[in-house]
């Protein structure tokens, strides 16, 4: 059970949050112009890495904000949290 640092509220228990899967998957700008494969990739295909993972969480029982988390999926250690709209930090696998 993690301690997650909400970028707005500070360190809180994981149970106040909900995880929503991979981050930085932008919705295609003009969906009608892309192929079924590209659309399918956007909808369903995920990087699911063993190691550094960028993901989205919400502080449901708190400020209700969405934000990003960088976490190692092997150690489960949270490396960084940052607000929506901020650019993706480059973090190397250990």
């Amino acid at each position, binding site marked *: *059970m993690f301690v997650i640092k909400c970028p707005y509220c500070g360190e809180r228990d994981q149970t106040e949050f*909900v995880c929503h899967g991979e981050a930085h998957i932008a919705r295609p700008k003009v969906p009608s112009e892309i192929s079924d494969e590209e*659309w399918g990739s956007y*909808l*369903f*295909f995920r*990087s699911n890495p063993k190691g550094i*993972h960028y993901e989205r969480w919400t502080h449901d029982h708190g400020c209700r904000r969405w934000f990003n988390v960088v976490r190692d999926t092997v150690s489960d250690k949270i490396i960084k949290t940052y607000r929506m709209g901020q650019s993706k930090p480059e973090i190397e696998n250990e």
Partner: protein
Amino acid sequence: MKYSILNLVRNSFSYHENWQKAWSSPELKSEYDVVIVGGGGHGLGTAYYLAKEFGVKNIAVFEKGWIGGGNTGRNTTIIRSNYLWDESAALYDHAVNLWEGLSSELNFNVMFSQRGLFHLAHSVHDLQEISRRGYSNFLNGIDAELLNQDQVAKKIPYMNLNGRYPVLGALLQRRAGTARHDAVAWGYARAAENLGVDIIQNCEVKGINVSNGKVTGLETSKGSVNVNKVGLVPAGHSSVLANMAGFSLPINSVPLQALVSEPIKPILDCVIMSNAVHVYVSQSDKGELVVGAGSDAYNSYSQRGSFDMIEHMMAPLVELFPIFSRLKMLRTWGGIVDVTPDRSPIIGKTPVENIFINCGWGTGGFKATPGSAHVFAETVFKGEPNKIAAPFSIERHYSGALVDEAAAAAVAH
């Protein structure tokens, strides 16, 4: 040596000193016709059927740890085939049919115990759901009985029918039940080895060599091998292996946990599943209650989840069975399950020629083990998906032809 009561008695005279290895640990060869990556039930079973039904000779199963140590060794062992959609029903019922003869077929008792499974309905909506599924099972030739509250009460003593969410009825599949999970891996391994399959443990696949869009070899922790065909059956690690071959999957790997209570004398002789109260439970032959928890929403490869998932199981268990409150939780554990968007597996071809994949069984693939292995063996052998497997292609994620068991609200255990 054949396993039988006679041989057991015979061997007892020699203090069981003459039993042979159930499977051995051969050296890695430099070349195989088919390599199955992943020594879980599905992988070992695939190798077994490839050898037995298709006569493939030079097969190896590569397992990065010990066989059966993945989800095969850590699941709540629920077996059923009462799925909603025709495609799933066909696949899982194929498996149940094979389960029924599996101990004999493998000459290894996998203790498939058809003690019946009850899906509880707690609301009008639940009743509609079990009725829809029950009717679909009925017409697919899968046994299904819709029970009302009184019938449930008679069949399951000690269950609290009038809690916060009263039990209004249940869908019963009598042919459903449980099996001894470890025995499935061991039984397939022993039977496969008897047919000449090399079972290579502590052999992690670390790279996949592809040339001209076609697989040529594998890099493993024990060295390199040349291969003709590869079947990937790595459960929680399916994305990792797909990445090695240069493609990606519609999969997230998440923790799923379970627990056992201390052993007690028989008190619950069927399997109970409840979506609304969020619990599933059965009692093992050894006497523990085997209880399943929910999966975490975050990706992880650590074979452990958040403890609140376990906590969230305990109040529902006590709600449904107030008599279990004083019992003790003995051990909790986790597995990594690879979850697809529609909670149905992926079986079939991949973008790389001669690499085939069987994954995405998520929280519910143990029950499919023999069926999955059987249809996948044919798929690998023929290079084309078997008829039952065909709807479970990767392509469905582009076409939209999902087999959406998740949407239909039947939890997938």
